[in-house]
């Protein structure tokens, strides 16, 4: 868990220091220098409106990573809570399991699409559209991770001396669930990052002009054959984030 916290701190730092490193205003257009290849002034070149790609990648990370980290955290918390309720209370399991199973039949991308159409654009609707469709998936995964744990001897022992359900959940199940949650964080993070990018590609995730890696990928698609740097920079950063998060999360403590 400490590693995850450290990682989030690093992300937070990167987001905060973007203004210090960005050489240009990410919104400033300069159509005379559109699709300029990388040189000493524009280290990563410029996009189709002449905006500096390096500055946009740095500022875009702010929005992209904020959205991804919030969505991942929210989904994990809600999913763990639901999974625990399902694991501990048989009645809840009987009522909720069919509903969760049905939700799994709806593709998350499709649900996100519909949710975004309902709620309009913006950062909060985007986070909601990423979070809600994934909660059933995470809850299901948590439920199947909790099931073998609650059959363990020490849980039976705790139950037989009269421990309450919440006591057992917090003191006996949760500590054993942590490694699974940690590994799952990496998977979920990459899913959220890719899904946010996908929604931007569909022109539903971004806001006009605001830099965002997914939006940059979408914008660059029109000219990437002549100006590959416009899609390479945000794409490589996305991959680097996913690899980095998974590397930290999967290292054995």
């Amino acid at each position, binding site marked *: 868990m400490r590693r995850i916290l450290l990682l989030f701190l690093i992300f937070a730092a990167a987001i905060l220091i973007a203004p210090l490193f960005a050489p240009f205003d990410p919104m400033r257009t300069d159509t005379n220098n559109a699709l300029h290849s990388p040189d000493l002034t524009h280290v990563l070149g410029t996009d189709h409106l002449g905006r500096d790609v390096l500055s946009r990648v740095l500022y875009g990370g702010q929005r992209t990573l904020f959205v991804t980290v919030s969505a991942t955290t929210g989904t994990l918390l809600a999913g763990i809570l639901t999974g625990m309720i399902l694991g501990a209370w048989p009645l809840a399991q009987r009522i909720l399991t*069919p*509903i969760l*199973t*049905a*939700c*799994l*039949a*709806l*593709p*998350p*991308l*499709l649900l996100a*699409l*519909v*949710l975004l*159409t*309902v709620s309009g654009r913006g950062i909060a609707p985007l986070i909601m559209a990423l979070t809600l469709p994934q909660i059933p998936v995470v809850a299901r995964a948590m439920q199947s991770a909790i099931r073998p744990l609650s059959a363990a001897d020490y849980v039976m022992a705790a139950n037989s001396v009269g421990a309450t359900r919440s006591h057992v959940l917090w003191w006996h199940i949760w500590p054993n669930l942590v490694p699974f949650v940690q590994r799952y964080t990496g998977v979920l993070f*990459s899913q959220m*990052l*890719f899904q946010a*990018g*996908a929604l931007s*590609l*569909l022109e539903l995730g971004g806001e006009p002009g605001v830099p965002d890696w997914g939006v940059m*990928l979408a914008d660059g*698609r029109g000219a*990437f*054959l002549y100006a*590959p740097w416009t*899609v390479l920079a945000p*794409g490589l950063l*996305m*991959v680097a984030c*996913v*690899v980095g998060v*998974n590397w930290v999360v999967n290292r054995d403590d």
Partner: protein
Amino acid sequence: MFRRLITSLGTLWLAVTLTFVLLRLVPGDAIAAQFEGSSNPQAAQLKRVALGLDQPPLVQYASYWVGLVRGDLGVSLATGLPVTEMLAQRWPGTLALTGGGMLFAIVFGLGAGMARAWTHGIIARLAAFYSTLALSIPAYWTATLALLLLGRWFAHPAYSFLPSAIIGVHSGGVIAQIFGGALRDVASADYIRVARAKGLSDSAILWRHALRPALVPVIMVIALQAGYLMSGAILTEMIFQRYGVGLLLRDSVLAQDYPVVQGIVVILAGVYVLLTFAAEIAVWWLDPRVRS
């Protein structure tokens, strides 16, 4: 088996109901957009009445189900064509793209999984690298890069399998990860040790003893990945410019053409239910422990 059928039907019912409610929460629809700024304010109302959209939501919901049972998915608000007809037109393209992608995924996934668990040295490491990489890159970015690097090949009709292959690379990584892990778990089982003690060769052990139990967890992953590719078609079709169900879905969502969106959701949920059902039957056939 009966209980399984009830759950499947319940899943479909909930999927239909959930989208029905969600779609009607959105203000406006395709008709409103069509007649916006029109000099005849009654025209939109007339069209609504003709399509039964002036009736209370519960009546609309009931008549949707009546239509669904008879295989009628309603009429598109934008084009006026039956939704089933529009879907039938687009379906072959999507099926070719995702079906082909799934075939590639199974070949890549089983191959890399086997290489990872049953070989040593550079091949095993390459296989592990492949499955990690496939999981760390979004499919739409690989597709964009592939167009950049192999652009001229895509235009050639002989290479029309390329988009499927690129989609397959990613699902193949997931399959490889699960299959490799399962094979390694199986390798330490008692019956494999017995087979080794009998003096069987490595390949005989793999094909006759290890493969079948290791495939059990993979079946479900394959089914889920197939469903995932179907819904991912919305992106892949956009990038490879194949006009299939995915692009129809995007256009219909943006145009607020709800009967079409609803129809596609029903089909996708149905495909998901069928796939998981088929996977359970396959597991039942592969694993005698499930049967008892």
